[in-house]
Each structure stands twice: as C-alpha cells, then as structure tokens.
C-alpha cells in the first residue's frame, strides 16, 4: 500500500473514531449509542489492519481481526442484550449536562487533546502518530461521558469508549504493544464489561432502575 493511501486511511479511521465519540455525546438514547459504539469499534479495527497491509506483516492484521470481533461485534451485542431488559424506553433521564454544554465541553477537550499530544508527534512524526490526537480526544470525550451520564449502562459504555480510545492511541503511535499484552488487555476489558453488565442487572433488581444518582447511600 502506498504511503498516501495509508495516511488517508489512517486519517479517515481516526476521524470517524472521533466523530463516533462526538455523536455519542450528542445522541443520548442507549440503542443509538450502542450502534455508534460498534461503528467506533470498526474504525478502531481498521487501524491495525491497514498497518498490517502497509507493512506486509500478518501480526497486526490478526490483532485487528480480534479487535473487530471483540469491540465491533461481541461487546456491542452483549450490551444490546443487556439493554433489552431496560424498561422506560431507551431515553436517557435528565442529563447532568445539557447537550449544548456537552458539545462545547467536547470541543474544548479536543483542543486540549491536540495540545497534549504534540510531544508524541515531535518524538516520532509518522502518519500514525499524526492521527493520534484524534484518538486522544476521543479518550477525553469518553471520560466526559462517564462523568456526565446518569444511567449505569451509559457509564459502562463510556468506559468502553475510554478503552477504545486508549487502544486506538496505542495502535496509532506504535505498531501495537506486544501480543501478550494486547491479549491480556482484551480479556480484561471483556471481563470488565461482563462484570459491569451483571452489576447493572443486580442494580435493576435491587433499586428498580439503574439511575446512578441513587447510589449515594455510602457516604461519611
């Protein structure tokens, strides 16, 4: 693959990754969010696959396929199944931050991300590294989602977005961490999401719904 195409694909992938994150902030419904998450997983998987094709090495391609299966297919399916049990439709209750303010915060976080990742680009100015700010911005936006969503499932989705952002950053700036680490990280995220799913279920049984504002009994 020639470099220009490779750069273009990376930029496109990183861009869609970031766009998915912004759209998740904008759309508050759970079903839409999960579809956007799946889309983000696909964008994420494109990066190592493109890298593998560019460098004619099978390892990143294999990693990309695993990532696609896990974050693009498996986890969104698990989430969708968990969400099906959610009553009151898929509308998010009154958010902590209204949409306009949220989008403004998103813009600010993107700017911060671009400023913060300059040392990375200066250290190694490859096409991948140049696209890293977008992934980092998506990471910060994911943190914002975790902080501002009232539904347990939304917060879990925010966490998954965070992990996606970190994985994207990792794939963009390096050719991927050693395989065993990547496998371990993937397993961890899978188990973490399972745990969060079970907890959401138990929460629904104990509290009635999954509004996180109810979790205020434990305090000094």
């Amino acid at each position: 693959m020639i470099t220009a195409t490779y750069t273009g694909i990376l930029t496109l992938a990183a861009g869609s990754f970031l766009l998915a994150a912004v759209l998740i902030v904008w759309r508050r419904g759970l079903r839409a969010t999960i579809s956007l998450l799946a889309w983000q997983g696909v964008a994420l998987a494109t990066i190592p696959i493109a890298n593998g094709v560019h460098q004619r090495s099978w390892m990143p391609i294999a990693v990309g396929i695993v990532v696609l299966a896990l974050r693009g297919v498996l986890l969104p399916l698990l989430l969708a199944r968990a969400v099906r049990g959610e009553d009151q439709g898929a509308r998010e209750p009154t958010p902590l931050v209204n949409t306009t303010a949220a989008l403004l915060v998103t813009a600010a976080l993107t700017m911060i991300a671009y400023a913060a990742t300059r040392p990375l680009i200066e250290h190694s100015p490859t096409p991948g590294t140049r696209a890293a700010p977008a992934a980092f911005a998506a990471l910060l936006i994911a943190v914002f989602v975790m902080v501002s969503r009232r539904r347990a499932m939304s917060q879990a989705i925010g966490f998954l977005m965070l992990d996606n952002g970190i994985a994207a950053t990792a794939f963009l700036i390096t050719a991927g961490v050693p395989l065993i680490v990547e496998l371990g990280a993937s397993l961890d995220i899978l188990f973490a999401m399972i745990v969060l799913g079970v907890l959401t279920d138990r929460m629904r049984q104990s509290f009635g719904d999954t509004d996180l504002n109810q979790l205020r009994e434990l305090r000094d």
Partner: protein
Amino acid sequence: MAGLLFLPIAAPLVAASLAAIFGWHRWTAIVTALSAMAILGAGVTLAFFTDGESVVDSHHLVRADALSSTMLLVIGAVATLACLASIGYIDAELADGHTSPQAARLYGVLLPLFLATMALSVMAMSIGVMWVGIEATTVVTAFLVGHRRTRAALEATWKYVIICSFGIALAFLGTVLVYFAGTTGEPGNHSLDIDVLLSGAARLDPRVTSLAAGLLLLGYGAKAGLVPFHTWLADAHSQAPAPVSALMSGVLLSVAFYALLRVKSIIDLTLGEGFMRVGLIVMGLLTLAVAALLLVVQTDFKRMLAYSSMENMGIVAIAAAVGTRLAIAALLLHVLAHGVAKALVFVSSGAIQGAHGSTAIANVRAVLARSPLVGSAFTLGIVVLLGLPPFAMFASEWGVARALAAQHFGWLLGTMLVFVAIAFTGLVRAGSSMMLGAPQAGDTPFVPPRAIGGTLILGIGLSVALCFSLGPLTNLLDAAATTLGAGR
C-alpha cells in the same frame, strides 16, 4: 527453579479450579489456605536466591528479584491469615443463612484467583504483564466486594469497578507511552521487559516519558488509593466481607504500590528523581491529609480502618518520594507490618460485626470484657497501626522519618506527623470506645468461630515476631531497596 517461580501463580489456580468443580467445602477452603502458605514459602525460598542484586527468571515469563520476593512474603503472610479466616467466616454465613451455596462457591473460586493475579503482578517479566495482572485483580475482586448482595455492597462494587478501571486504563495508556518513548517504531515482544527498559532508560524520549509518568502515577495510584482516585476505597473495603477487606487493605494496595515503584525506577533513570518525587509528595500528602481528616469524623469502624489504610499509603508514597535506600527499606517493612496488622484488625472486626450485626462504632461497647480474644487482637492491631513500640511499624515510621530528615525534608516530616497525629486521635477514640468499658444490659459475651480464633492468634504471633530485627528479613529489604536503584 522454574517450578518455584511458577508456584505462587499455579498453586492458587489449582485451588480455584478445585473450588469451581466441587463448590464450597471446608477442604477446598483449606486447600486455598495451603496455596496461600505456598506463596509465603515460595517468597521465603526465593529470598535466598535473590540476595543482593541477582535476578532469576524463567522462560521470559516470570521474574523474581529481591523486591518481588519481599512482595511475595507480604502477599503470602496476609493471604494466609485471610484464607484461614475465610473458612470460619463463610461457614458461619452459611449457617446463619446470610449467603447461598452458589455465592459461597463463587467466593471460593474468586479468592484464590485473586491471590494468583496478585502473584502474577509482582512476578511479571514486563510492565505490560504487570498491568494485566493488576487490572485482573479489579475484575476478580469485584464480586468478592459484592459478595453480600446488599444495596450498599452493590453501590460499593459499582464505584470500585468504575473508578479503578478508569484509573487502570490511564495506567495502560501510560504503559503504551513508555513503550512508544523507547521504540520509535520497532515493536518487539521484549520491549516492555523490566530489565530491557532499565538498561535502555536513558534513551527514552523525556517529554513523552513525563506524560507517561503522570498517567502511570495516576493510574496505579488509583489502585493504591491515592488522591484523586481514592474515593472508592472506603466504600469497597467496608462493604466487602472481612477476610476480603483484610486482603484488599493489607496487600492489594501494596501490590499496586509495587507497580508504582517498578515504573518509578525506570522513569527516574530517564527524567531524574525530581519528577516522580514531586508527584508522589503532592499525592501522598493530599492522601494523608484527606484520610486523617475523614478518619476523625467516622461513625463506622470498617470505614475507619479503610481510611487508616489510605493514611498508611500516603506515608508509603512520601517515603517512595524520598527514594533513598533507608526510605525504601523502611517503606517495605511498613508495607509488611501494616499488612499483617490490618489483616488482624479486619478479621477481628469481622467477628465483632458478626456478633453485633452492624458496623457502627456507637453500637459496639466493652469488647475486651466480652470476648478477650477478639478484644485483645483488635487492640493489639490498633496499637501496631498507631506506630507504638516495640512493634515493627514504630521502626518503619522512624526509618521514614530519618530518611526524610537526611534529605532535608523537615517541613514535609512535620506536616506528615501532624496528620498522623490527627489519625492517631481518631483511632484511639474509636478504639477505646469500642474496646473499653463495662458491659451494659444487652452486651453479651461472644465467642468467634474456631477458625477465626486460630487466625487471630496467628496474626498476633506474626505481629509480635515482626518486632524483632530478623537478620535475613532486614537483609532482604535492604537488597530490595538496592535493586530499585536507590544507591544513594
């Protein structure tokens, strides 16, 4: 040698599989306790092989040096106490109907898995595998914290998983950045190995490394209970069953701190000592302050003990910031002594909770008169935690003080001691109101189950044994401090 290195991970895995197949029985619980003792034994044996600066490894998967051996000792000692206590604890819960056989089976599987993940973290060859181990501890302990299925336990579990996973994810990003700082594009399966990073540390890009350092400090600090990711600690440690609280407070926090120490030794070679030192001082002092102030206004004794753990992690962070040989050796002794004492106190508080059905300080009175064993164990544990002689935490805190003074950190020492004195007040007040006094109407004597009673006696014995300056132990701690590059 390979067998010895894999034993601390394999033995608990075997115990976990047995528990998964056969469910909770007394003998599976005893096997778990034996696996904990195996970890302790492995630590003791490895201590002899890793004397000085030598390192042993096997198949490029696991690695042990003096620091790893020390951590295995800590894990093994505290785990033995906690697993022995679990036997009596779960049996009592099953008898009272507070838990079901399925929940007991889950507990029996997760507890040894927890031990295995901690052992993996301290013996990992690369900082990437170390990260995997620490993240795994969060996942494994989630349902241990939520064992009791109450609303409060559920709330605590959710907060624990979310906040810790958030932090640990940041640590992963930091790890990736370290990898990035060193490689400039060439991947390799061994680039994250500790020894490789140590030898190539001078060549890492400083600006990328400083960003990575900040993220690693935040991330592993989250698991160690340092500000600003400290907010899960009191909830999780107070809602978990007492043996789990003992393990989490006594050793999981220290394992997370072990991870910090490892990355610090690499980063100090790249950026010089000053960077991590400032970060650790700020976080450590804030943690100490928040923990001490919240401790004095506590009404729940398990939360109070959790804040005491947080306070001690603040002290450990400040000692790590100083970074001299004396400071690190004292830090490790502090971690060991604190682990044993905290386990002792948590197991006795579990017995107290079982007898009263609540964890409110106001509801507990005259324990010394009503149960001499539980009362003495709790009191002795508190005395050790307060840093009073002749116990080991006096020696460790005195060592930290000397290290601080030698590096001209007198102001830091003074501030640290003021907050320690505030925490002292809280612990003495709560301890005296719970332990002392004459029994009133309604305060009946109580006897803990035999397994718990045995654990308490063992814990008391261990705390007393640590008073003495055992030559091999002191040499080991010294060697561990040296391997961290603290030759100053």
